[in-house]
């Protein structure tokens, strides 16, 4: 009798139990939907960034090719034959050895050979920016954690 009373005292009404189950179900649904939504959002963002990176990489290659092309074009326009032709058209003549006047100019620095050092030097060693955690699967990670590394002796 006492047991029955106690059970009755703490037992919830059937409609409350049903409500709790429905609530739990909805909560789970919301959590799943949220996770799925976040996943979709991140995934879509990552895909967009990935595509953008691919496009930027393509653009960079294209720009590098265009820079090389322009540099060569500039060299063609300033080649010896072109410069000589332009100078002749402008009325210049090649100087003869006997007609040069030499004079001392204090502080004169003669032309120096080419220096092609660039400020943005590549480093000899470039470590990978993509760490394994971004690329390995769960199984690979577990394997890595539990299977000891066996290097060559």
């Amino acid at each position, binding site marked *: 009798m006492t047991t029955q009373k106690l059970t009755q005292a703490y037992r919830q009404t059937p409609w409350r139990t049903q409500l709790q189950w429905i609530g739990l179900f909805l909560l789970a649904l919301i959590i799943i939907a949220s996770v799925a939504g976040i996943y979709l959002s991140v*995934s879509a963002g*990552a*895909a*967009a*960034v*990935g*595509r953008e*990176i*691919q496009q930027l*990489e393509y653009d960079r290659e*294209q720009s*590098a*090719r*265009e820079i*090389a*092309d322009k*540099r*060569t*074009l*500039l*060299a*063609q326009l*300033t*080649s*010896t*034959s072109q410069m*000589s032709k332009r100078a002749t058209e402008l009325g210049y003549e090649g*100087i*003869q*050895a*006997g007609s*040069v006047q*030499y004079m*001392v100019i204090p502080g004169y620095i*003669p*032309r120096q*050979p*080419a*220096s*092609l*050092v*660039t*400020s*943005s*030097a*590549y*480093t*000899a060693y*470039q470590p*990978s*920016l*993509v760490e394994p955690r*971004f*690329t390995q699967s769960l199984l690979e990670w577990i394997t890595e954690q539990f299977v000891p590394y066996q290097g060559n002796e």
Partner: protein
Amino acid sequence: MTERNFNPRYKAIGIIFLVAGVVIILQMFRLQTSASAKELLEASERYAGVSKLVYPDRGNIYDRWGHLLAGDQQVYEVGINLQASGINPETLATVLQAVLGVDYATVLDAAKMPYIEGKSEYVVITDFVSADKINALQEMQIKYADMPAVEGQTRPSLNGLEWNGHRVRNYPEGKLASNILGFFAFGERDNASGYFGIEEEYNDLLSGTPKQVFIPSDPHAMYDIPDMPPGTSLVLTIDRSIQSSIEATLARHIKKTKAKSATIVVEDPETGEILAMASYPQMNLNKYWTYDEIYPNATGFNRAISSVYEPGSVFKVLTMAAALDSGSVTPDTVFVDTGTFEVGGYTIYNWDSGAWGPQTMLGCLQHSLNVCLSWVATQTGAETFYSYLQAFGFGRPTGIDLAGEAYYPLRVPGDAQWFDVDLATNSFGQGIAVTPMQMAMAVSAIANGGKMMAPHIVRSMVDNGRQYDVTPQVVGTPIRAETATVLTNLLATSLEEESSVALVPGYRMAGKTGTAEIATEYGYTTYLTNASFVGWGPVDDPKFVVYIWLEEPRNSVWGSVVAAPVFSEVVKNLVVLMNIPPDDVRAELANQ
């Protein structure tokens, strides 16, 4: 309804779900292990991305002042994407024929090819198309995109037309320094390589190290973007202006003398740097496929390093150097020239078959007497004479950093092919074969106070944004500084006293002509010669050595007539381009 009534229904639904679940799991298992699953997996791997070998950009080549001699140009490959919708083969064929000049039928056949996945997806129509033509195609593509369809006809369209840019080697100066640079056969695409000269010698450095890269199709997939440094760029010792000047001189004298070929080398004796090197014939490096026409039957691409010949009397400079340095003769030693000299059972004659009577060493050089120099060589002794020649670098390559250097073994006493008479003939440059580069290197030792520098053509290398200069190397000291000074003055006086056409007003030069008969199957001929000249200056502080070789000149066989004026012309330009004031001005400046 009671709870009891629900139980069988729940159980039934539960059983249905259970069975469905088991079926799904079994189906998943079947799909994973079936033969088609394997194909599917392979297909997914195939489409997972592209694994390709990425080549770094080829390094550039510059002259000593930073003028670009070899760089890259952008060109395009044009093709048809067969997967594209609305391909109109007729329009494509018409437009591509009009703009690119390709065959109409070829394009038509290509555009009509069916799309077969993995086999026939893209067809290349042509390659190496310039940017101008691509711009024209782009304009046409826009024009056709807006074109309305005509009822009953296929809509005109350039759908499927694609182009991809890539680099090709370009030489902005065209023919200039072609014999030095060599060429990069870009038409071979991934298998392209450098041929001859710098392009071949430094091919590995210029190319850089290719990397195998996997580029996934999945934009989610993480991968390293290959950040590859370009190949090493090279700065040459060549001065573009001097090179251009000597090439112009070369062309003028080839035309004037109707010589078969000609070579000029200009070297800085203090460092071994090659300031200019020209050899005829030359080729436009941007049309490297003309190589076979320009150099038939394996003609030397750069005769300065790849052709050996008997130099003739210019070699007397080295014979005299050996004799003076070893103390066998002095400048005042008198030799009585009777017109003949017997050695090893053979008789040596002078170039004019004359007898010149008593002559000092100056007279022997000035009149280029074979008889005298043969005697000088015998006074020096065979062993000493050849040890000097070896010290001057003969019988081995100079080691210049250009591909395709040739050399002829030096026959020395003890060799089966060496005879006593060789000592005499070698003394005046017959019976010995050398390259112009070997001669220039040897003579540079005299011009540089006895110190012989390694000839080189790369001044510095630019790798990873840093520039590394090449340090000049001393190859040896074949003669003493005093000998070099004495010989230089002897040869300068010799030029002055004979009023040589090689003289340059205002500048004292040392030099020697050479005329060597060419050996044919009938023996040496008098009408076919190699005419040479070697000279250096200014005598008080030599800044250059100039070596000239004209092969089979037709207007005159004599080096003094055809090669000496070339030297004078080259030097007149050199002193201006190198900012070398006349001797009196320099003396005046030195005294200030």
